[in-house]
């Protein structure tokens, strides 16, 4: 399907386990982003990527790792999950720099519960 997809949509894991959230987009957008959304905090940026093999930290990167070996994929890994990482995770993408194209398009989200 065209657009931006995330998998899994729901995940329950235990403290200390490693878990990877997948994000795939078919638009060939240069920029990709990972956010977490929690009550009272809104959307907070975890990591972002401007292109394949270029990633950088956002506002709340601790405990997360990302990679971007291909333009279309941007996985987010929790190396050792903690209860505080229970959240809804959104992936987003944005086109390149031609003109003002600040609009980000969001995936459907992954609801992660860490027990």
């Amino acid at each position, binding site marked *: 399907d065209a657009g931006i997809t995330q998998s899994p949509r729901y995940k329950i894991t235990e403290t200390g386990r490693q878990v990877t959230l997948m994000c795939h987009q078919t638009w060939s957008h240069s*920029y990709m*982003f990972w956010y977490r959304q929690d009550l*009272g*905090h*809104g*959307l*907070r*940026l975890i990591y*972002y990527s*401007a292109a394949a093999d270029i990633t*950088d930290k*956002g506002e709340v990167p601790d405990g997360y790792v990302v990679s971007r070996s291909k333009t279309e994929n941007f996985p987010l890994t929790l190396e050792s999950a903690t209860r505080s990482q229970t959240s809804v995770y*959104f992936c987003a993408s*944005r086109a390149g*720099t031609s003109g*003002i194209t*600040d*609009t*980000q*398009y*969001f*995936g*459907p*989200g992954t609801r992660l519960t860490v027990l």
Partner: protein
Amino acid sequence: EDKVVQSPLSLVVHEGDTVTLNCSYEVTNFRSLLWYKQEKKAPTFLFMLTSSGIEKKSGRLSSILDKKELFSILNITATQTGDSAVYLCAVAPYGGATNKLIFGTGTLLAVQP
């Protein structure tokens, strides 16, 4: 520190009412302001504003930006129950090659029949 503040936090109205949602910001090197609608899923894009005083309109929704006073409003006329959602405001600053968005915490709108 850059920040985006939305008000009110929540709002309950009846169908047919007109609502105004507010977004104020303190952001270094402002580039654009965006509005999103979030129902029980991903945020969906509504508007992007870059210039003061130019209204963007889509059906019953409209938005305007005031870069001097550093705020934007989102108006919804003749509200319907399908307008019930969280409305998010975000600002994109210049700087680097990232075009990160800084989000407010949102306004929860509930439209009662």
